[in-house]
Structures are given as C-alpha cells and as structure tokens.
C-alpha cells in the first residue's frame, strides 16, 4: 500500500469551482486508491463533487491531498496537476 500526502496551493483564479471539481472526481474515480482532501480540519471524500464544492476552496487557499492505495503515486500526480493548474481569468 502506498500513501502520498502533500499540501497544495490552489492557483486557479476562480478557486475550486464546479468544473475543476468534476474533472477531479472523474480522474480520482479512475483509480482504486482512496482520495481525501482536507482544508481547515475538514476532511472530505475526493471522489464526491459535493464534498469538494463544500470546501469552498478559493485561489490562494491551501489544502492537503491524501491518496492511499496500490496506484496512489500515479493517481496523486494526475490529481495534483488538476489542483495546481492555473486557469486564465475571465
């Protein structure tokens, strides 16, 4: 069992809104590993869009991403890329 955990800074100018949340869940669901996100002592299931949106993570906020399971390393790399991606300001 692998476990990867790291603090990530949200760089998306609009925060973790519905579109990145949906993309995150789609990607997380491809993997067997469990995915958790925590922010300000709140922990949610990273395979639930509702869970991610409930964090209300804004640009500049820090979250902790925890991925645990056989394919954790690969999953973590893909998920981290989604979270730290910058979207152009509209």
């Amino acid at each position: 069992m692998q476990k990867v955990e790291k603090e990530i800074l949200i760089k998306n100018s609009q925060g973790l809104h519905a579109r990145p949340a949906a993309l995150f869940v789609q990607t997380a669901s491809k993997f067997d590993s469990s995915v958790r996100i925590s922010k300000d002592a709140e922990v949610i299931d990273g395979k639930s869009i509702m869970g991610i949106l409930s964090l209300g993570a804004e640009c500049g906020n820090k979250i902790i991403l925890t991925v645990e399971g056989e394919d954790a390393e690969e999953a973590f790399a893909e998920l981290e890329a989604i979270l730290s991606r910058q979207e152009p300001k509209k």
Partner: protein
Amino acid sequence: MKLSDYLSEKQIIVGAKSKKKKESLKELLGALVSLRKISPRSRNKILSSLMARERLGSTAIGQGVAIPHARLELVKKSLVVIGLFEEGLEFDSLDGELVYVVFLILSPKELEGFHLKMLATISKLLRDKYFLERLKKSKTASEISQLIKSQEERM
C-alpha cells in the same frame, strides 16, 4: 453565507414538469420572470449563458442534484431558484443518473466570489444524506423552505 437569504419561498418550484435540461432551465427562468426577478427580455440571454456553461461540462454533481449557474451583467441581484422534478430530468450527469433537484444560481458579473461561496453553502447542506432525501420527498415550497432553515440552524 446562507441559502435562505437568496431564496424566497416563491423561488421554490415544486412539481416542475420538464424532462430535459434546456426545458427545465427555461421553466425555472419562466418562474423568475413571473416573479419579476428577471425581465422577459433577459430570459433568453440567461438561458444561453446557462447552456454554454453546461456544454463545458454538466453541472449535475451526483445524487440527483444539479447546480446550473451563470454570472451576467444583466443580473442585478444574486438569487437562487430551486426546482423539484419528481419524474427526473436528463442532465448528462457524471453518474448517469436522473436529476430530481435543481439549484439554479444567478449572480451579477462583478460578484466573482459569490458563486463559489454559494456552491459551498449548498453542498454543505446536501452532504447530509437525510436532508437530501427529505428535500426530494417534499411536497410543498413551504416544507422545503422550513427544511432549509432548520438545517441552517443546526449547522
């Protein structure tokens, strides 16, 4: 932020009839026109903005819920309207399931952070499965309004 501050009882539509995404959005916007919350002329512009957003990816977030939204200059005051579709809607949801509850969010263009905060507020309420089940089974707007207020008090 509280959902009930942006949602009058009249903005809760129980027994909505549409079966498809676009029709359902039209139906909810129509209700807002009748309530004079938006002008008849702005309705089509709002509808195309909502549909453009849907084309980027469905706003159905699972468990029978969708949260379509638009941020537009012609919207002067942020508001939410809830539609309860008893028979279920096709909404291109990720989990392939029909949508029964729609939270339609409109906000002015300049209020950038509103939308994310409202999504968080609604998602926090919905994380409670018991709340969501009761919401889906509600029969009247006042029942839903009370349900939301009591859930907000508990949080």
